[in-house]
């Protein structure tokens, strides 16, 4: 795209800080798998770092990141489609996704409207009362704040491997025990979540 000003590293970092959480939240809704969502969003940002300095910022950086991440996730799920449910997941993702060739920027209004609910939904998953309070906060900082494991470990004054293990265990419990990625419907779950929601904000 000629005429676009070049993008600096700090600018891309700013996009990461602002948009990482919403991109992960949208992808978790599409995929129902936190690990795949995180990895896809990280891939998308890696692609942005390579591409944006030459092309300039896309009109909607968040839309670009989300669409790129979704395409990466589809590719990854296709590659790993040896398992039947993976295939179903990829099909689901495809059905919800935009047709190939859509300009990522054009879909940004749709993404925009879904964003707040998606992030709030993911916060409720991260702060589910079945997770220990420390895990709730750490997971929220990681998935919605985009903080690295090292940064979260420093904040909690624990060694990085300890924090890494805590995050892996929490994500594993969400997946295996099927902690829902939806709004709590029961009032007791809601109030149970609130204390750590407060400490996250």
């Amino acid at each position, binding site marked *: 795209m000629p005429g676009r000003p070049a993008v600096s590293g700090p600018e891309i970092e700013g996009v990461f800080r602002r948009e990482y959480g919403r991109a992960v939240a949208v992808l978790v809704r599409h995929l129902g798998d936190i690990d795949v969502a995180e990895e896809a969003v990280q891939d998308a940002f890696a692609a942005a770092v390579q591409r944006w300095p030459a092309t300039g910022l896309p009109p909607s950086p968040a839309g670009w990141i989300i669409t790129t991440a979704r395409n990466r996730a589809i590719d990854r799920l296709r590659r790993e489609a040896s398992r039947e449910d993976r295939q179903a997941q990829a099909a689901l993702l495809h059905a919800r996704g935009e047709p190939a060739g859509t300009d990522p920027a054009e879909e940004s209004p749709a993404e925009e409207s879904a964003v707040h609910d998606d992030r709030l939904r993911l916060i409720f998953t991260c702060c*589910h009362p079945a997770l220990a309070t420390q895990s709730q906060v750490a997971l929220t900082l990681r998935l919605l704040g985009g903080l690295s494991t090292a940064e979260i470990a420093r904040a909690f004054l624990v060694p990085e491997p300890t924090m890494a293990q805590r995050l892996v265990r929490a994500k594993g419990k969400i997946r295996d025990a*099927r902690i829902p990625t939806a709004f*709590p419907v*029961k009032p007791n779950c809601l109030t149970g979540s609130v204390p750590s929601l407060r400490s996250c904000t």
Partner: protein
Amino acid sequence: MTQYLLTVYQPDGDPPPPEVLDPIMAGVEAWGSDLKAAGSWVFSAGLHPASTATVVRVSGGETLTTDGPFTEGKEHVGGFTILRLPDLDAALESARKLADVTHLPIEVRPLQGEVRD
């Protein structure tokens, strides 16, 4: 759907007198009936006291049998139920009802593997 194991932990020793135990058992019965009616119930069992347990180990081809439960303590597994439910919130709600009826702590653990709806 996921299957969940709900384990009841109860104190060792004699069971409470009938006037206490009977309403509890009636409550547990009603709890199970509701889950059966909803199609969520898979299996339930109550266990004899932990003092009737035997632990078997094999080491170097030798079999060692010890009298009593694997973990020493004042509380042991008293019974368990397997339920088939959509997510952890549903399992926790069932556990809450059972804990309310029995006045005992209930541990909820997901079983490995998905089950078809």
